[in-house]
């Protein structure tokens, strides 16, 4: 195995990501802005859905892109940059969630309000984002994480395993449980 040369040679056939990484490592900090622009929204979608609010999500995103920047010399071209970045993102979201675990208890009260308020029942035509977020927030964090990676980011189980450090069968179990919980929720409220 040979490592591709770092920083000094920019090959013509490299993907945009790899080329931008090489530029940053060669000293061009502004090249990092291209990477941020390319991935910020997609990472934001995961972070917001995972953490349930934008403030926490922005903290996680900030930390993610900063850490990725610091660790840039560890990224090797043969890894997909997005997968490598996502690994950091998943970890950062876990950190942020752990630090603010006390906030999750608030959602229990909100669910009670939700069930008693008929105008907040789900319907099939474009429920607002807030409602879907509440539903996701009710999932256990580990189940939510697996569900998002599988169905929102559409990753394979192998990719998810590399990202989370969890075995494939455990991940499949978590995804299944997430779907079960969501289905149960539907059963509970559909007849209201």
């Amino acid at each position, binding site marked *: *195995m040979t*490592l591709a040369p770092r920083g000094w040679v920019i090959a013509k056939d490299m993907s945009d990501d790899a080329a931008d990484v090489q530029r940053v490592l060669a*000293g061009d900090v502004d090249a990092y802005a291209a990477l941020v622009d390319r991935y910020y929204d997609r990472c934001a979608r995961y972070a917001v859905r995972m953490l349930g609010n934008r403030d926490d999500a922005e903290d996680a995103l900030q*930390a993610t892109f900063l*850490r990725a920047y*610091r*660790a840039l*010399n*560890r*990224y*090797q071209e043969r*890894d997909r940059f997005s997968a490598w970045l996502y*690994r*950091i993102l998943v*970890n950062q979201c*876990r*950190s942020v969630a*752990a*630090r603010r675990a006390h906030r999750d208890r608030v959602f229990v009260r909100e669910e009670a309000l939700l069930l008693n308020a008929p105008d907040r029942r789900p319907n099939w035509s474009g429920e607002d984002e807030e409602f879907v977020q509440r539903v996701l927030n009710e999932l256990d964090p580990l189940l939510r994480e697996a569900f998002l990676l599988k169905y929102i980011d559409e990753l394979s189980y192998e990719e998810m*395993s*590399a990202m989370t*450090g*969890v*075995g494939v069968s455990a991940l499949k179990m978590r995804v299944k449980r997430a779907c079960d919980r969501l289905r149960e929720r539907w059963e509970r409220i559909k007849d209201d």
Partner: protein
Amino acid sequence: MIHASLLRRLRISTLGAGVLVASAISASAQDTNPLAKLEPGGNRFVIELLMDSATAAGLPSRPLLSKALEGISKKADGKRIVEAVRKRLLFLRTARGVLGPVDDEELSAGAALLEAGAKPAQLELFRPRRKGHNDLEAFIVWADFLQRNVPSEEAYSAITKLWVDGADDETFRSLWTNVQSDISQGLNPGTALQNRIRETPGRASPVPVKPPEG
């Protein structure tokens, strides 16, 4: 290098012939078979074959010999020694699959980490190599946490957090020292780790550094 010389001097016995030589391991300069304490045939033969398999697969056989000697020393049953050696070979193979062409020391440390309960997928993050640096300290600290029954994902999370942050060996070592101290004062290992990781600084707040010219 000790490993190269050991490989040169090892001649693995085939059916009915040969003597195992491994003088780099024992302090004695004589040519004695360190597995002599295991009676020939059966278990000893299997161990020698396992060492042969390791060499053929480009894996170090020294850790296998070491495990066998350890078992002999601890007066373990022959079958148990074979099992332990076999298990170690399996973990060396797996470590090779995940970490790639790292040197023997890192490979052994990675295998030990798997032995301690880390999952192969978790080692994926450590595949990229930094020249002039190895991850031995991180692997050792991580394996220790697993041995102390810190939950697997918490240990993984803590170690990777530091690693991605560019933590040096000192940082891993300090984390270990602090967590161990907390555990010895009665704190639950998982909790101890969570506390200490929370207080471990990310890289110090950015200090404007004048970049070198050119």
